[in-house]
């Protein structure tokens, strides 16, 4: 430890009264109390070394004779080694002068002391005496709290080791009240530290509950690329996370820790995975976790992790539902309600839809009329919602009740029932009529026809209704849907009417869908190959 210089000089017996005396004081000739503690120290310093400041300024020889003599006497008086070398007579003369002048025998040491800076980066030396005393009071208060806090930690350590109390002989037990008192104490300490030094302490370091965990800092190399300047609270929380993950702790406090981190950064997949481990290890009610998750999901729409977490929860919950159709139906309804709610905010959210198809498969609710109705509602709201169309296709054509396993999505399935295929064809046509240039129901229509092993030409009349006078050069050519034209090209190809097919493709490239001309030209080549 560096030698501690005295912050405030103690009054000394030999020192004259502290009040500025009429004797001209070398440094400050003010009569008022020094404005700052630095000025006060300077004053005291100068006051203990009469004529020294003037001597430094103009040299000993420049001083009046009496001041010269006084300065020399003072030097001798406080330098015993020099003094004892004086002849006895000179020593007596010296003491006489000292008595007469009554100047201080002891001089204060050099004034290079640093008072430090406060939380605002201001020099403490600029404080007024009152303000400084107040600050020192706080510092003392903090020291007291720190001592008490150390006492708490020691007691806790002893408790852990099973040490007995010396007086009572009982095992030391740290009570809840003591922990609570310590928590309050640390709050006070943090407030004081913040006030005095501007240091911010993380909430984990302040919480006695986390005393047993030694946080593991990030430890990134200085030159690391794209390093993120962590906010302090995140930095601290993540350091605690690393530590508890390393010791594979699963507990309520870890669960809370994951929640804190997820709130700050929901994209942190590691913390989600660890949260799931906690939920399962502690055997917490899955429904509680899902309720919590709902809230998180509603504020973090674009997030992979939330939906994978939900997936894990459902996998875990499923065995308890499997044997109970009522429970399962109830669960399916709750989930559907929630998914509907979340899709209102983002109707095409990919993660939500992927989860939804997983859920249908897991719970086996392909045939659920409510599920189909829910999708129809979304399509009624926005007939261009392709996510809803995709889900409908999955509901209808992946139902294991009438699906041949192992077929690709664009392969015909002999197990697809005719009535369902017909129903879906009609549904698609109905929606196409609302907005013929909407590609979703056209893709759906073609998908249904292929799955249901129907000839594309079964919708030739329907598709032709959107195209008038194709190839006419008199300006009567009218196309209401490029997708109809595309399908017609396929229909004619299927019917081996190459020229008609080629005309459709040519007109698409030349006029109706020019951006895709390269594709339409390739399709024309395909016709030649067929």
């Amino acid at each position, binding site marked *: 430890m560096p030698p501690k210089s005295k912050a405030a000089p103690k009054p000394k017996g030999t020192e004259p009264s502290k009040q500025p005396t009429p004797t001209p004081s070398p440094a400050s000739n003010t009569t008022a109390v020094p404005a700052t503690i630095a000025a006060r120290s300077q004053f005291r310093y100068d006051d203990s070394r009469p004529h020294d400041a003037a001597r430094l300024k103009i040299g000993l020889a420049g001083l009046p004779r009496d001041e010269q003599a006084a300065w020399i006497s003072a030097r001798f008086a406080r330098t015993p080694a020099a003094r004892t070398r004086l002849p006895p007579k000179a020593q007596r003369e010296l003491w006489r002068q000292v008595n007469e002048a009554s100047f201080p025998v002891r001089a204060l040491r050099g004034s290079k002391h640093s008072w430090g800076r406060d939380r605002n980066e201001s020099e403490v030396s600029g404080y007024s005496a009152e303000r400084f005393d107040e600050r020192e009071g706080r510092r003392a208060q903090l020291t007291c709290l720190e001592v008490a806090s150390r006492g708490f930690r020691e007691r806790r350590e002893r408790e852990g080791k099973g040490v007995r109390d010396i007086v009572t002989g009982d095992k030391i037990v740290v009570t809840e009240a003591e922990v609570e008192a310590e928590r309050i104490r640390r709050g006070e300490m943090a407030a004081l530290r913040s006030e005095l030094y501007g240091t911010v302490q993380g909430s984990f370091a302040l919480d006695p509950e986390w005393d047993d965990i030694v946080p593991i800092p990030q430890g990134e190399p200085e030159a690391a690329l794209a390093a*993120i300047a962590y906010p302090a609270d995140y930095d601290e929380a993540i350091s605690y996370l690393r530590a508890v993950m390393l010791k594979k702790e699963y507990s309520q406090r870890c669960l809370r820790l994951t929640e804190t981190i997820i709130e700050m950064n929901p994209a942190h997949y590691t913390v989600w995975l660890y949260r799931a481990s906690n939920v399962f290890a502690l055997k917490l009610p899955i429904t509680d976790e899902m309720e919590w998750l709902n809230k998180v999901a509603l504020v973090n729409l674009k997030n992979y992790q939330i939906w994978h977490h939900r997936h894990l929860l459902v996998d875990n919950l499923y065995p308890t539902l499997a044997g109970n159709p009522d429970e399962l139906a109830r669960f399916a309804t709750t989930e559907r309600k929630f998914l509907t709610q979340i899709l209102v905010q983002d109707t095409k959210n990919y993660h939500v839809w992927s989860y939804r198809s997983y859920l249908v498969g897991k719970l086996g609710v392909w045939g659920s009329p409510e599920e189909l109705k829910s999708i129809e509602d979304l399509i009624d709201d926005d007939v261009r919602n392709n996510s809803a169309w995709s889900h409908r296709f999955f509901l209808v054509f992946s139902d294991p009740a009438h699906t041949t396993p192992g077929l690709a999505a664009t392969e015909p399935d002999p197990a697809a029932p005719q009535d369902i295929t017909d129903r879906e064809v009609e549904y698609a046509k109905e929606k196409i009529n609302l907005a013929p240039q909407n590609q979703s129901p056209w893709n759906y229509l073609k998908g249904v026809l292929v799955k249901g092993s129907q000839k594309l030409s079964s919708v030739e009349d329907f598709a032709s209704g959107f195209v008038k006078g194709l190839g006419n050069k008199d300006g009567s050519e009218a196309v209401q849907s490029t997708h109809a034209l595309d399908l017609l090209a396929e229909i004619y190809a299927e019917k081996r009417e190459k020229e008609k097919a080629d005309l459709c493709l040519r007109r698409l490239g030349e006029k109706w869908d020019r951006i895709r001309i390269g594709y339409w030209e390739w399709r024309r080549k395909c016709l030649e190959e*067929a």
Partner: protein
Amino acid sequence: MKSSFQQRSPPQPQDDSETDEECITERTHYPAFMIPDLFTQLPLVRDALVTSTSQTQDETVDTCLPYLAGEDELFMYNLHGVPNLDRERHIKFLHSSLGRLPGRFLAADASRPWFLYWALSALAIMGEDVSSYREALVDTARGMQNETGGFGGGGKQTSHIATTYAIVLALALVGGEDAFEVIDRKSLWSWLCELKQPDGGFQVFLGGEEDIRGAYCTAVIIRLLNLPLDLTPTSPAWTSDGTVDLFSGVGDYVRRCQTFEGGISGQPNAEAHGAYAFCALGALALLGDPRRTIPRYLDVPRLISWLSSRQYAPEAGFSGRTNKLVDGCYSHWVGGCFPLIEACLSSPGAPDQAAGHPANAVRLPPVPESLFSREGLIRYILCCCQDQSKRGGLRDKPGKMSDAYHSCYVLSGLSSAQHQWQLAPSGTEDDSTAATVDLVWTVLPYLDDVQVFDQKNLVRPIHPVYAIPLHSQQAIRSYFLAKEGF
């Protein structure tokens, strides 16, 4: 914002040094740019019915049109109404995205390896030498590697297949033995075995979701690092008869991700999405000769139809799904599928496809010119995706902030649109040999009838499967091919 386009400012004299005379003349004699009306007018066929999809679509077109029509004041346009690639600003933006990031990037804390790949890749595409980042990247990557194999999204995070992929590509980009040797291949390989699932797919991290990203990223890692395909007995997919390896069932998994629309979904039974189309094709192309593997597992005509449908006019960039909006990043995810597909269809010596998906029974002809509008994509990228403020960088669409992700994939897409790849004839029918893994890819700039961009805006080609420059891919693979054992 729109009103600002009505007033056209005269060319700024201080820009003269950067601009040739013609540009200035063109600007003052507006509207004389040679821009096909395809890119300046609403599509011919439109429905009257208004839904939220059509509303956002119309808004997007409104936003893009002034940029496409050469009306943006910040740009200097050429004769074709196309501005230059503002390399200087983009390069500056990307360098700074590799520096220390402020706290608002917190959400990226679990995906920092991506930032490394995005920025380095974008710089490399613009011809910058990124090897100066080697030392710093080596240190950064080391801190993210786990002893149990793979790399996490940051220090002491669980290993993730996507972040591992990003780190491996970033290391390949900076190149050099020091960078390659960071990777603990043995633990990486055994970790990949743990991720392998009995249904052929891969989890993205232990206990994580299984999706097609897992398949693509794993395949890239295995091939670049020349990892063995054998499974460890601790793999969930391991069988005692030894018939299953890391690539077993991948093709079928990909096949199950193709949807009725023809596109590819992230996992079976979801919606077709552009990002996954690239993953699917990439994964198949790494299993063996893509001219065989792609038609074996996918309905190619449907896939091409779906991919082609992603390009709308007048925006001319790509969307990621049916009835979704254009976004610069799909220039790569969708646009990047075309070089591979065109090469497969057009390269001589395409092997017999008959054994594949029933829909491919008809021989698919070579592509006459190009399957997509390269001019359109280039226009969208140069007109709409450049942040021409001081900030620089590339973006989703006008009005959005530029970022490293979009910079990388918009530039990758630009590269795809400017180049044409060819595959040398494959001499073998056996997909497992090195000959099919190391197919000979050659590349030339794509020559359009009218080249709408100035020659100095030509960016570097990137490998149609690995999405890094060819020489970077070859350097890392040959390094590990030459290495014995781990």
